[in-house]
Protein backbone atom coordinates (compact mmCIF):
# COMPACT_ATOMS: atom_id res chain seq x y z
CA UNK A 1 0.00 0.00 0.00
CA UNK A 2 2.10 2.92 -1.19
CA UNK A 3 1.02 6.33 0.00
CA UNK A 4 0.12 9.09 -2.39
CA UNK A 5 3.20 11.23 -2.92
CA UNK A 6 3.28 14.23 -5.19
CA UNK A 7 5.40 17.32 -5.47
CA UNK A 8 2.66 19.64 -4.26
CA UNK A 9 2.32 17.67 -1.04
CA UNK A 10 6.07 17.75 -0.49
CA UNK A 11 6.38 21.44 -1.26
CA UNK A 12 3.56 22.13 1.21
CA UNK A 13 5.42 20.21 3.90
CA UNK A 14 8.78 21.92 3.25
CA UNK A 15 7.06 25.30 3.37
CA UNK A 16 6.32 24.66 7.02
CA UNK A 17 10.03 24.20 7.82
CA UNK A 18 11.84 27.55 7.56
CA UNK A 19 15.11 25.81 8.40
CA UNK A 20 14.72 23.58 5.33
CA UNK A 21 14.31 26.71 3.21
CA UNK A 22 17.38 28.19 4.90
CA UNK A 23 19.35 25.11 3.81
CA UNK A 24 17.86 25.33 0.30
CA UNK A 25 16.45 21.81 0.46
CA UNK A 26 14.48 20.75 -2.63
CA UNK A 27 12.61 17.50 -3.42
CA UNK A 28 13.32 15.28 -6.41
CA UNK A 29 10.52 12.86 -7.13
CA UNK A 30 10.99 9.73 -9.21
CA UNK A 31 7.70 7.88 -9.15
CA UNK A 32 7.05 7.33 -5.47
CA UNK A 33 10.71 7.54 -4.54
CA UNK A 34 11.63 10.80 -2.90
CA UNK A 35 15.19 12.12 -2.94
CA UNK A 36 16.06 15.39 -1.30
CA UNK A 37 18.83 17.65 -2.52
CA UNK A 38 20.74 20.23 -0.51
CA UNK A 39 22.50 22.46 -3.05
CA UNK A 40 25.99 23.59 -2.25
CA UNK A 41 26.20 27.02 -0.63
CA UNK A 42 29.12 28.78 1.02
CA UNK A 43 27.30 29.10 4.29
CA UNK A 44 27.01 25.35 4.90
CA UNK A 45 30.80 25.02 5.04
CA UNK A 46 32.23 23.90 8.37
CA UNK A 47 35.93 24.02 7.57
CA UNK A 48 36.92 26.77 5.15
CA UNK A 49 40.47 25.44 4.71
CA UNK A 50 39.38 21.96 3.63
CA UNK A 51 36.17 23.33 2.09
CA UNK A 52 34.36 20.62 4.04
CA UNK A 53 30.62 20.76 4.69
CA UNK A 54 29.56 21.27 8.30
CA UNK A 55 28.48 17.95 9.73
CA UNK A 56 25.62 19.72 11.46
CA UNK A 57 24.25 21.00 8.14
CA UNK A 58 24.32 17.49 6.67
CA UNK A 59 22.69 16.08 9.80
CA UNK A 60 19.98 18.70 9.74
CA UNK A 61 19.38 17.97 6.05
CA UNK A 62 18.95 14.28 6.87
CA UNK A 63 16.58 15.02 9.76
CA UNK A 64 14.38 17.10 7.46
CA UNK A 65 14.44 14.27 4.92
CA UNK A 66 13.30 11.79 7.57
CA UNK A 67 10.54 14.00 8.89
CA UNK A 68 9.10 14.82 5.47
CA UNK A 69 9.19 11.16 4.42
CA UNK A 70 7.34 10.21 7.60
CA UNK A 71 4.70 12.85 7.12
CA UNK A 72 4.10 11.66 3.55
CA UNK A 73 3.93 7.99 4.45
CA UNK A 74 1.62 8.66 7.36
CA UNK A 75 -0.41 11.23 5.43
CA UNK A 76 -0.10 13.37 8.51
CA UNK A 77 -0.04 17.14 8.38
CA UNK A 78 1.86 17.23 11.67
CA UNK A 79 5.56 16.45 11.84
CA UNK A 80 7.03 13.54 13.73
CA UNK A 81 9.52 14.53 16.43
CA UNK A 82 12.99 13.03 16.70
CA UNK A 83 13.52 11.09 19.95
CA UNK A 84 16.86 9.31 19.59
CA UNK A 85 19.00 9.90 16.51
CA UNK A 86 22.41 8.51 15.61
CA UNK A 87 24.63 9.95 12.91
CA UNK A 88 27.70 8.21 11.45
CA UNK A 89 30.10 10.41 9.53
CA UNK A 90 31.76 8.28 6.87
CA UNK A 91 33.32 10.69 4.39
CA UNK A 92 34.03 14.37 4.24
CA UNK A 93 31.27 16.41 2.59
CA UNK A 94 32.81 18.29 -0.32
CA UNK A 95 31.62 21.63 -1.75
CA UNK A 96 28.98 20.21 -4.04
CA UNK A 97 25.31 19.17 -3.95
CA UNK A 98 24.29 16.54 -1.42
CA UNK A 99 21.45 14.04 -1.81
CA UNK A 100 19.49 12.12 0.80
CA UNK A 101 16.91 9.36 0.80
CA UNK A 102 14.98 8.00 3.78
CA UNK A 103 13.74 4.47 4.38
CA UNK A 104 11.24 3.65 7.09
CA UNK A 105 12.55 0.56 8.82
CA UNK A 106 9.64 0.08 11.13
CA UNK A 107 6.35 1.87 11.46
CA UNK A 108 4.66 1.51 14.81
CA UNK A 109 1.54 3.19 16.06
CA UNK A 110 3.46 5.69 18.17
CA UNK A 111 7.08 5.45 17.05
CA UNK A 112 8.85 5.02 13.71
CA UNK A 113 12.38 3.98 12.96
CA UNK A 114 13.96 5.67 9.95
CA UNK A 115 17.29 5.38 8.18
CA UNK A 116 18.59 8.18 5.98
CA UNK A 117 21.58 8.03 3.70
CA UNK A 118 23.29 11.17 2.37
CA UNK A 119 25.65 11.01 -0.57
CA UNK A 120 27.35 13.21 -3.16
CA UNK A 121 28.98 10.99 -5.81
CA UNK A 122 27.15 7.73 -5.49
CA UNK A 123 24.47 6.19 -3.32
CA UNK A 124 26.98 3.43 -2.59
CA UNK A 125 29.55 5.76 -1.06
CA UNK A 126 27.45 7.69 1.46
CA UNK A 127 29.06 10.60 3.25
CA UNK A 128 26.76 10.29 6.27
CA UNK A 129 24.06 7.95 7.51
CA UNK A 130 21.39 8.73 10.08
CA UNK A 131 19.21 6.27 11.96
CA UNK A 132 16.68 7.28 14.47
CA UNK A 133 13.42 6.89 16.26
CA UNK A 134 10.75 9.49 15.70
CA UNK A 135 7.61 9.99 17.75
CA UNK A 136 4.48 10.37 15.68
CA UNK A 137 2.24 13.31 16.43
CA UNK A 138 -1.34 12.53 15.63
CA UNK A 139 -3.50 15.00 13.80
CA UNK A 140 -6.01 16.61 16.06
Amino acid at each position, binding site marked *: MSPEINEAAIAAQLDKIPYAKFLGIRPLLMGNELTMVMPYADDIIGNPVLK*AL*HGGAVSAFMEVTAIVQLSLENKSARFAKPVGVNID*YLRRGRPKDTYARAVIMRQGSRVSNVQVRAWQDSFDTPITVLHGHFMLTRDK
Partner: protein
Amino acid sequence: MTDTQPKKKTKEERLTWLWELGPMMVGGTPHGIALGFRFVAIDIGSATIAMDYNPKLIGDTETRVMAGGAVTALLDQTSGLAAMSAFEQTVPVATLDLRIDYMRAAEPGKNIIAEARCYKTTRNVAFVRAIAHDGDPDNPVASSQAVFMTTGGGSRKPDLTPDALTADTKETGQ
Protein backbone atom coordinates in the same frame (compact mmCIF):
# COMPACT_ATOMS: atom_id res chain seq x y z
CA MET B 1 57.06 11.60 11.87
CA THR B 2 59.53 14.28 10.85
CA ASP B 3 57.62 17.07 12.62
CA THR B 4 59.38 18.71 15.49
CA GLN B 5 57.52 18.15 18.73
CA PRO B 6 56.18 21.41 20.15
CA LYS B 7 57.26 22.39 23.65
CA LYS B 8 54.98 21.17 26.40
CA LYS B 9 52.80 24.05 27.60
CA THR B 10 51.90 24.85 31.17
CA LYS B 11 48.24 24.66 32.14
CA GLU B 12 48.08 28.44 32.18
CA GLU B 13 49.54 28.66 28.68
CA ARG B 14 47.07 26.05 27.49
CA LEU B 15 44.12 27.97 28.89
CA THR B 16 45.31 31.24 27.41
CA TRP B 17 45.63 29.53 24.06
CA LEU B 18 42.22 27.83 24.35
CA TRP B 19 40.54 31.18 25.02
CA GLU B 20 42.09 32.42 21.76
CA LEU B 21 41.27 29.21 19.91
CA GLY B 22 37.60 29.00 20.96
CA PRO B 23 36.39 32.30 19.48
CA MET B 24 38.55 31.70 16.39
CA MET B 25 37.01 28.29 15.80
CA VAL B 26 33.44 29.46 16.31
CA GLY B 27 33.97 32.64 14.32
CA GLY B 28 35.82 30.80 11.55
CA THR B 29 33.07 28.33 10.74
CA PRO B 30 30.81 29.68 7.98
CA HIS B 31 27.87 27.45 8.90
CA GLY B 32 28.27 28.32 12.57
CA ILE B 33 28.15 32.01 11.65
CA ALA B 34 25.05 31.38 9.52
CA LEU B 35 23.33 29.72 12.50
CA GLY B 36 24.40 32.51 14.85
CA PHE B 37 26.70 30.48 17.08
CA ARG B 38 28.36 32.51 19.83
CA PHE B 39 31.43 31.31 21.71
CA VAL B 40 30.76 31.35 25.46
CA ALA B 41 33.47 29.49 27.34
CA ILE B 42 36.20 26.90 27.13
CA ASP B 43 38.34 24.89 29.50
CA ILE B 44 40.61 21.90 29.13
CA GLY B 45 38.18 19.24 27.93
CA SER B 46 35.05 21.35 27.90
CA ALA B 47 33.34 24.03 25.85
CA THR B 48 30.14 26.09 25.80
CA ILE B 49 28.55 27.68 22.72
CA ALA B 50 25.23 29.53 22.44
CA MET B 51 22.75 29.86 19.58
CA ASP B 52 20.30 32.73 19.58
CA TYR B 53 16.67 32.06 18.82
CA ASN B 54 16.20 32.68 15.12
CA PRO B 55 12.90 32.41 13.18
CA LYS B 56 14.91 31.27 10.15
CA LEU B 57 15.85 28.10 12.04
CA ILE B 58 12.34 27.07 12.98
CA GLY B 59 11.50 23.42 12.33
CA ASP B 60 7.74 23.74 12.31
CA THR B 61 5.83 26.98 11.69
CA GLU B 62 2.98 25.63 13.79
CA THR B 63 5.03 25.30 16.98
CA ARG B 64 7.76 27.88 16.13
CA VAL B 65 10.26 25.59 17.87
CA MET B 66 13.83 25.65 16.51
CA ALA B 67 14.55 22.66 14.26
CA GLY B 68 16.12 19.60 15.84
CA GLY B 69 18.78 19.84 13.13
CA ALA B 70 19.93 23.26 14.36
CA VAL B 71 20.37 21.83 17.86
CA THR B 72 22.28 18.90 16.32
CA ALA B 73 24.64 21.29 14.54
CA LEU B 74 25.22 23.21 17.77
CA LEU B 75 25.91 20.02 19.76
CA ASP B 76 28.28 18.79 17.06
CA GLN B 77 30.30 21.99 17.01
CA THR B 78 30.43 22.35 20.79
CA SER B 79 31.44 18.72 21.24
CA GLY B 80 34.17 19.08 18.62
CA LEU B 81 35.58 22.10 20.42
CA ALA B 82 35.55 20.22 23.74
CA ALA B 83 37.34 17.30 22.06
CA MET B 84 40.04 19.57 20.64
CA SER B 85 40.57 21.28 23.95
CA ALA B 86 41.18 17.94 25.64
CA PHE B 87 44.31 17.11 23.67
CA GLU B 88 47.58 18.43 24.97
CA GLN B 89 48.77 19.27 21.49
CA THR B 90 46.18 21.11 19.40
CA VAL B 91 45.21 18.93 16.47
CA PRO B 92 42.23 18.91 14.13
CA VAL B 93 39.53 16.42 15.05
CA ALA B 94 36.72 14.89 13.00
CA THR B 95 33.39 13.55 14.27
CA LEU B 96 33.12 9.79 13.89
CA ASP B 97 29.61 9.56 15.20
CA LEU B 98 27.15 11.54 17.21
CA ARG B 99 24.06 10.40 19.02
CA ILE B 100 21.41 12.84 20.16
CA ASP B 101 18.42 12.27 22.39
CA TYR B 102 15.73 14.93 22.22
CA MET B 103 14.02 15.21 25.56
CA ARG B 104 11.63 18.07 24.89
CA ALA B 105 10.98 20.98 22.57
CA ALA B 106 12.99 24.13 23.22
CA GLU B 107 10.85 27.09 24.15
CA PRO B 108 10.20 29.41 21.19
CA GLY B 109 12.04 32.70 21.66
CA LYS B 110 14.69 31.36 23.99
CA ASN B 111 18.38 31.02 23.16
CA ILE B 112 19.91 27.57 23.28
CA ILE B 113 23.16 26.83 25.08
CA ALA B 114 25.26 23.72 24.49
CA GLU B 115 27.69 22.51 27.13
CA ALA B 116 30.10 19.75 26.18
CA ARG B 117 32.59 17.82 28.24
CA CYS B 118 35.21 15.40 26.99
CA TYR B 119 35.29 12.60 29.56
CA LYS B 120 37.99 10.44 28.03
CA THR B 121 40.75 10.65 25.46
CA THR B 122 43.03 8.00 24.08
CA ARG B 123 45.93 8.77 21.74
CA ASN B 124 43.66 9.43 18.76
CA VAL B 125 40.12 9.36 20.06
CA ALA B 126 38.05 11.68 22.24
CA PHE B 127 34.70 10.79 23.87
CA VAL B 128 32.38 13.71 24.53
CA ARG B 129 29.03 14.12 26.24
CA ALA B 130 26.99 17.28 25.84
CA ILE B 131 23.64 18.78 26.67
CA ALA B 132 21.65 21.59 25.08
CA HIS B 133 19.35 23.65 27.27
CA ASP B 134 17.34 26.84 26.99
CA GLY B 135 18.23 28.39 30.34
CA ASP B 136 18.17 25.61 32.92
CA PRO B 137 20.96 23.03 32.53
CA ASP B 138 18.99 20.69 34.79
CA ASN B 139 16.15 20.58 32.30
CA PRO B 140 17.94 20.05 28.97
CA VAL B 141 16.21 19.92 25.60
CA ALA B 142 18.74 17.46 24.18
CA SER B 143 21.62 15.33 25.27
CA SER B 144 24.38 13.85 23.13
CA GLN B 145 27.28 11.43 23.11
CA ALA B 146 29.94 11.61 20.41
CA VAL B 147 33.28 10.16 19.36
CA PHE B 148 35.94 12.26 17.70
CA MET B 149 39.17 11.25 16.07
CA THR B 150 42.28 13.30 15.48
CA THR B 151 43.05 13.87 11.83
CA GLY B 152 46.15 14.96 10.02
CA GLY B 153 48.08 11.70 10.45
CA GLY B 154 51.56 11.79 8.98
CA SER B 155 51.15 15.32 7.75
CA ARG B 156 50.18 16.56 11.20
CA LYS B 157 51.08 20.19 11.54
CA PRO B 158 52.84 21.52 14.59
CA ASP B 159 50.85 23.33 17.24
CA LEU B 160 49.31 26.75 16.88
CA THR B 161 48.03 26.71 13.34
CA PRO B 162 44.46 27.81 13.97
CA ASP B 163 43.43 27.81 10.32
CA ALA B 164 43.74 24.07 10.07
CA LEU B 165 41.94 23.33 13.28
CA THR B 166 38.25 23.44 12.54
CA ALA B 167 36.53 20.85 14.66
CA ASP B 168 33.95 19.58 12.26
CA THR B 169 35.92 18.24 9.35
CA LYS B 170 34.04 15.09 8.51
CA GLU B 171 37.07 13.05 7.63
CA THR B 172 37.63 9.61 8.97
CA GLY B 173 40.15 6.91 8.79
CA GLN B 174 43.01 8.80 7.22
